[in-house]
């Protein structure tokens, strides 16, 4: 990450929902940066806080009982300090969002064109006719055949893939600097998913937009993201460049995600290693490391530390850009000796050669103390 000010900088974001039973800390102290043209992947299970965080960036919690604190700086403006009206003017213009289920995300009673135009008209002083021309242009751009005709169709007349394309057209019509895609392909078939992911990448190049892609599918992350943020129980548990995280994960939860999904090339006799137990309650998160009740490696940490003390999000041995929230002293060794040989024995060597900067081959690992020091500096 460069020293130049990023497009989006989220610092210590907290989204808390007061309920009758207590406060649900859906997101609890989340920080990340994102530059234009880059993609951040946020991965986690349902209830990990990944969708809540992105809604907070759009200010969708305004007017509800949710308590949002911290900083969300977009284009040098802290979105949490501006008025509702100012926030509204940024929605769809500076930051747009596409959702998981394009069928329910579009209003069933209005034509696709109408809904796309609406997004344009609200931020641009143009005639309806111009807006429609623009909408057709965008539909064409996202690969809808015969856009001048389909613009008058209703969402139910579109296929799932086309609906998601139309949603993307709607999101990008104002050329926003930031696009948040919340599980954009989960409801789609694999071939359609591939089409959509390709489209997003093409468009990102064209518009130089920053993208936050939220998903539970590490495969999507692997294809799309420059940086990865792994969330668990409302907190980031591992954060770093995509390739680095996928080849040298240092947090047992990330290991769990990697080892619990089969892939189409792996060893078929290998057994999946599931993460035991259930995701934690956000009302009463576990003490210490929130993952410790499900962690199979907590015995490797002395003094019951995992249970009593929450680890900080700090760099490990792999350099300052790769941070994780874990007490394990030498996670790399555990991963390469205990986990990877189980799930992908053929990849152990290849993975081991990947350097923190993404290059392959011999390189001097950064000393952990230096990395820690650098991280400290960054904090200040």
């Amino acid at each position, binding site marked *: 990450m460069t020293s130049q000010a990023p497009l989006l900088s989220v610092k210590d974001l907290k989204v808390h929902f007061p309920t009758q039973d207590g406060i649900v800390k859906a997101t609890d102290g989340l920080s990340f940066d994102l530059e234009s043209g880059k993609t951040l992947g946020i991965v986690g*299970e*349902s209830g990990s806080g990944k969708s809540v965080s992105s809604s907070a960036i759009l200010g969708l919690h305004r007017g509800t009982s949710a308590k949002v604190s911290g900083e969300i700086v977009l284009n040098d403006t802290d979105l949490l300090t501006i008025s509702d009206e100012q926030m509204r003017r940024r929605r769809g213009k500076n930051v747009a969002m596409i959702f998981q289920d394009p069928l329910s995300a579009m209003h069933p009673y209005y034509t696709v064109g109408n809904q796309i135009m609406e997004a344009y008209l609200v931020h641009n002083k143009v005639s309806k006719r111009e807006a429609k021309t623009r909408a057709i242009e965008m539909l064409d751009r996202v690969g809808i*055949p015969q856009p001048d005709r389909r613009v008058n169709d209703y969402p139910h007349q579109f*296929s*799932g*893939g*086309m609906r998601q394309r139309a949603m993307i057209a709607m999101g990008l019509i104002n050329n926003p600097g930031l696009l948040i895609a919340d599980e954009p392909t989960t409801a789609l*078939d*694999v*071939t*359609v*998913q*591939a*089409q959509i*992911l*390709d489209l997003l990448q093409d468009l990102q190049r064209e518009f130089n937009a920053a993208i936050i892609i939220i998903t*539970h*599918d*590490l*495969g*999507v*992350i*692997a*294809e799309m993201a420059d940086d990865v943020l792994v969330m668990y129980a409302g907190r980031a548990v591992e954060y770093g460049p*995509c*390739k680095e995280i*996928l*080849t040298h994960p240092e947090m047992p939860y990330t290991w*769990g*995600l*990697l*080892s*619990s*999904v*089969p*892939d*189409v*090339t*792996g060893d*078929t006799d290998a*057994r*999946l*290693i*599931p*993460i*035991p137990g*259930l*995701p934690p309650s956000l009302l009463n998160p576990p003490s210490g490391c929130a993952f410790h009740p499900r962690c199979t490696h907590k015995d490797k940490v002395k003094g019951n530390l995992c249970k009593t003390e929450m680890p900080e999000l700090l760099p490990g041995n792999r350099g300052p850009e790769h941070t994780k929230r874990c007490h394990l002293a030498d996670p790399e060794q555990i991963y390469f000796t205990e986990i990877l040989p189980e799930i*992908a024995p053929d*990849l152990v060597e*290849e*993975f081991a050669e*990947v350097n923190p900067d993404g290059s*392959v081959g011999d390189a001097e690992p950064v000393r952990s103390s230096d990395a820690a020091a650098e991280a400290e500096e960054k904090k200040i």
Partner: protein
Amino acid sequence: MTDQTVTSDSGSAKSAEQSSEFAASRLAGGDGRDAILEVENLRMYFPVKSSGVIRRTVGHVQAVDGVSFQVPAGGALGLVGESGCGKSTTGRLITRLYQPTGGKIMFEGKDIAGLSPKKLMPLRRDIQMIFQDPYTSLNPRHTVGAIVGAPLLIHNVVPKKKVLPRVQELLEVVGLNPEHYNRYPNEFSGGQRQRIGIARALTLQPKLLVADEPVSALDVSIQAQVVNLLQDLQREFDISFLFIAHDLAVVRHFCPEVAVMYLGKIVEIADRETLYNHPQHPYTQALLSAVPDVKQAAIGGRRERIRLEGDVPSPINPPSGCRFRTRCPLAQEICAKQEPPLLQIGERHKVACHFAGEIGQHPTKPVTARLLGIDDQGNPDPGATPDPNAVEQPGFADTWYDVQGGHLGAKA
């Protein structure tokens, strides 16, 4: 549809019936065990009504159109494909939630396709289903004990007072606390509910489990738990599986043999090594290339993606000839005229494509032409005679056609 396709369709259906005797005698699994389920030319057409004063049937949604396969005893067949390909309908036909339009469903050698609900009753014990959505498939007003125990009472399997101990035993088997039998489904998480669904399916000790997307509604970390559970159960109770899913990786992980469906038909079926490593059908290839692969992608080893254009056509009016041809990068004239037969091209490998071949190695001339008695453009060739064995049958024969070398012929 051209006239020609019609004749060819009816012709294949007819000869399928003729050869069924032969097919039934074939062996199923590589381990030499008999097939517990053999499906032959299974069809399910949902009528489409006209909008006139009298509602005539003007067409059919050909949800499943001539599907044949075997499920080996104690084995697992995977059924993959995109939404609308007919895989779930196939599952429902086998559990006889639907009455098939045609074809045979041989379960342990007995055709259950046309059985009356009354005669089906004892068979329902043997064939059970696990559903996709653990939230809607359990009655929220019944306790878990009642849900799991209901089949026992309906089929009068054990005396009433023994139902509870059996229910608790089952809950323990699927990894739930047996003391929770009197709780309601909403007190459980999604994964736990799917376990309840599995327990219910296991209650009657079925021989065949049809699992329709059993893990796709679950969180990733929970998916693995359920997949592992199903694998354990299969081993422990010797249950055969028809495993239906859209997730190619999960199917590959679970099933030694996998069939790929497209628009109501099986386009390719093979053992998993062959299917995933050496797919010959352009659709299978496209499907596989679209699956993101974490580990490969991480080291930059991403495969070239085969882009499919457009959407799946309507099953009411499927394309003539090969149904995939409208989206196929290889399609030629013959594809519109002739439906490619599901041809056995390897020991345990069948594919339905005129231009079957591995990626980048597809032949330029149709490999099926001579076999079907037609020329390379798909027109009838008066000089050639169609091979009567080139019709779809369940299971695999001892002889197959070699397309590798670009020529046809039997190989021992």
